[in-house]
């Protein structure tokens, strides 16, 4: 029996098509994935992301612990309220998970990890935190709702108590606010983060207040959106998906995540030695963005022929915004020209492109020719 978020009955009542995702019974769509995708790009949509795992980390040496745990530098979080995206690596430099860490106070950070990796992440966090005396506490009592789209913030703000509204309105991108009084006075944790490439908020709220928040957002015209739209939105925005684009056998260098690695002097994070070694000896393969100008759909697992050897499609979709197929591909290092994907025995040309593919609802430069 798969696990259910507190919004499960609400999704079903709305006619959602449900699927198993990482052991959770989640909405794939509420009718049309394409409509949900466009709603987020053009107005506002909301996702139940309560299946993801919120974890609180508390202790006087919390920052020191995170310096050790994360490949990105927690010292980029200089004052409370800022968020950081990072990988958590194993000793081989492979990615155990990617996560976002919120700086609540100097002895209190919150992280959100993937649903499907929860069972390995929690013991890993406990084990790494113990020597630092940092307490790791999962927060299954919280529901998480991501409201995303150009109109998302404007839809959320009226639900915030007047006294807190300005504070939430002024949140910069990648900042969060705690102790916000939300709808009916319910305490919210609000972050201006997301996984769609659009502006918006992610709201953490106690389970018992989640349904009323969801319904209030729906009443305000926010379109419920499922995991299907979440996947096409995040790939257009050039964001990795754990398990598909990287895993424990892929380093950040190979997974398009070099930008999240901080080799700051003297910081001994888990996996650093392996990363430095791979960098010195040469990274054999890399992740690139590709576009297919021919008709068709790029899918996970399709073979990509290059002049330097074969590669493979990682995340691949038909992009609703662009009207053509886009993907991440893992290819031998330096392969950019003469890329061809094998679709049912037919080789079709691919173009290597810089990503994101879509920004502010429009194709990025070089995506459409």
């Amino acid at each position, binding site marked *: 029996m798969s696990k259910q978020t507190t919004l499960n009955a609400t999704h079903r009542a709305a006619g959602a098509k449900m699927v198993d995702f990482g052991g959770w019974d989640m909405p794939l*769509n509420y009718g049309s*994935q*394409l409509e949900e995708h466009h709603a987020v790009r053009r107005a506002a949509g909301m996702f139940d992301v309560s299946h993801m795992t919120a974890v609180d980390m508390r202790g006087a040496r919390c920052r020191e612990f995170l310096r050790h745990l994360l490949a990105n530098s927690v010292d980029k979080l200089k004052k409370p309220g800022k968020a950081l995206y990072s990988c958590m690596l194993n000793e081989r430099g492979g990615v155990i998970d990617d996560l976002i860490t919120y700086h609540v106070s100097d002895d209190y950070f919150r992280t959100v990890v993937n649903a499907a990796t929860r069972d390995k992440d929690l013991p890993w966090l406990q084990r790494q935190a113990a020597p630092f005396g940092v307490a790791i506490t999962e927060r299954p009592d919280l529901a998480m709702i991501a409201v995303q789209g150009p109109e998302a913030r404007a839809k959320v703000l009226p639900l915030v108590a007047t006294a807190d509204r300005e504070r939430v309105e002024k949140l910069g991108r990648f900042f969060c606010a705690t102790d916000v009084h939300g709808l009916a006075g319910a305490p919210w944790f609000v972050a201006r983060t997301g996984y769609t490439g659009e502006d918006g908020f992610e709201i953490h709220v106690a389970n018992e207040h989640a349904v009323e928040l969801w319904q209030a957002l729906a009443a305000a015209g926010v379109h419920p959106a499922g995991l*299907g739209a979440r996947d096409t939105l995040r790939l257009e925005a050039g964001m990795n998906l754990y398990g598909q684009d990287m895993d424990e056998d892929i380093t950040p260098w190979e997974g398009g995540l070099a930008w999240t690695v901080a080799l700051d002097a003297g910081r001994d994070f888990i996996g650093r030695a392996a990363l430095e070694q791979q960098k010195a000896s040469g990274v054999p393969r890399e992740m690139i963005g590709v576009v297919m100008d021919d*008709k*068709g759909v790029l899918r996970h697992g399709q073979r990509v022929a290059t002049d330097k050897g074969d590669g493979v499609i990682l995340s691949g979709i*038909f992009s609703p915004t662009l009207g053509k197929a886009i993907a991440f591909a893992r290819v031998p290092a330096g392969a950019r020209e003469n890329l061809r994907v094998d679709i*049912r025995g037919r080789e079709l040309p691919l173009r290597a492109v810089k990503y994101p593919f879509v920004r502010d609802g429009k194709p990025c430069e070089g995506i459409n020719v």
Partner: protein
Amino acid sequence: MSEIPGDLKFQKSHEWVRVEEGGRARVGISDHAQGLLGDLVYVELPKVGDKIEAGSGCAVVESVKAASDIYAPVSGEVVEVNEALSDKPETINEDAFGDGWLFVVKLSNPDELDALLGPDDYAELIENDEH
């Protein structure tokens, strides 16, 4: 769920056949099938002149979720394909039993039609599918 037209015959894998004048048969996928697939974004059709064989894969439809093979419900030569689907694959979502047809074959073995399900039997099949 739209009504299942009474003049259609079905294969268990959800393709429909409509027998027309001159030994021709039009082929598509059922409304139930398009519902299962979700929003369609690409259709790969056979070419006019291709010989297709009942039970063999002869086309592919791709939704936002996955690619699915279409199995020929009858054998014959393809005499017409629905070119409009190339730019508007969503027509299948909108009108699976009508404008969303895939191709027309000139039947080489009309007896094969007897092996297909009538509308009532197909309705029962998909009902059982849903439980």
